[in-house]
C-alpha cells in the first residue's frame, strides 16, 4: 500500500501507549494494531479525526504517500 501510517512514530513522540490511545479514541487495540502495522485497507474520517485530536497532530503527520506500484489486495474469493 503506497500510503504509510506513522502511528507508531506519533505515539512515541507524544509518549502514548497503544492501550491508552485505544481507550482515548474508542478504537480497539486490535484495530489500532492493524493501522499501526500498515495492514488497514481503509480508514474512516472519524477515526482520523479522533487520532489527530488525541495525538495533537495533523493528518499529514500521520499519513505519508510513498510513490510506487500498489500492493495487490488479496481477496478471499
Amino acid at each position: 500500500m503506497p500510503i504509510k501510517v506513522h502511528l507508531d512514530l506519533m505515539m512515541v513522540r507524544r509518549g502514548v501507549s497503544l492501550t491508552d490511545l485505544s481507550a482515548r479514541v474508542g478504537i480497539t487495540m486490535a484495530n489500532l494494531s492493524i493501522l499501526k502495522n500498515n495492514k488497514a485497507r481503509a480508514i474512516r474520517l472519524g477515526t482520523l479525526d479522533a487520532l489527530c485530536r488525541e495525538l495533537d497532530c495533523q493528518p499529514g503527520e500521520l499519513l505519508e504517500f510513498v510513490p510506487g506500484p500498489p500492493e495487490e489486495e488479496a481477496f478471499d474469493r
Partner: protein
Amino acid sequence: MSDTSRESHGPDRLRGAHGAGWLARLLTLATAAIGALLVAGVLWLLVSCPLWWPGAPRLPLPASVELPAAAAPTPDPAAAAQLEDIALRHLRAEVEVRFAGPWRQWLYVFFALQELALLVVALLLLRHVVSDLSRGNVFTHANARRLRWLGLVLLVEAIYAPGISSALSQWLTGGLTFAGEPLRIDWRQSLGGAGLASAWIVLVLSEAFRQGADLREEQSLTV
C-alpha cells in the same frame, strides 16, 4: 462509544445471527431424511428386479388416456338437471405399470432416484449457507457460488422431472393403447411454475450475495 470502536476485522457479527441455529438443525434433519429415502430407493432398486422378485410392485406413471366418446360415462339425469349441457371430453387415469424386463424397471427407478439425489445436493448446498448464517458470516463469495449452484440445480430439477422422465416414460411405454386410444404421458402434471420461480429467485439471490461479499471485503480492514 464512537462508531470506530467496532471491530472491523474478522467476521461481521450480524444481529440475530445465533437465531439461525434452528434453521441449520431443520435442514440437517431434512437432508438426513431425504438421504435416507435415497438410500432406501437404491436398495429397493437392487432388490426389486423381477428376475428374483416376480411380485415387484407396479410403478406409477404420470399418464393419461383419452377415452373415446362412446366409452365415456354419461351423467345421472338428476345431477344433470341443473345443467343445460355437459360432456366428458377427457378423463385422466393413474397408470401403474410393471415392466417386462428388469432393465426397464431399473431405468425408470434410476431416473426417479436422480431427482431425489438432486434434492439432496440442493439441501447440502443450503446447509453450508445456513451454517455460515449461524456464525454471522454469510456474505462470502463461497456462499454466492453455492447459491448459484443451488439455483442451477433447482432449474435442472424443474425442467428435468417433466421433461426427461416423462420422455423416458413415453419411450418405455411406446405404442401402448387402451381401447384403441394411445397412452399419453401427461408431462404437464409434473411441470411446476413454483419450481422454476424458486430457481430464478435463488439465482438472483446469489448475485445479491456476491455483491454483499464485495461490500464486506471493502468494509473489512477498514479502521
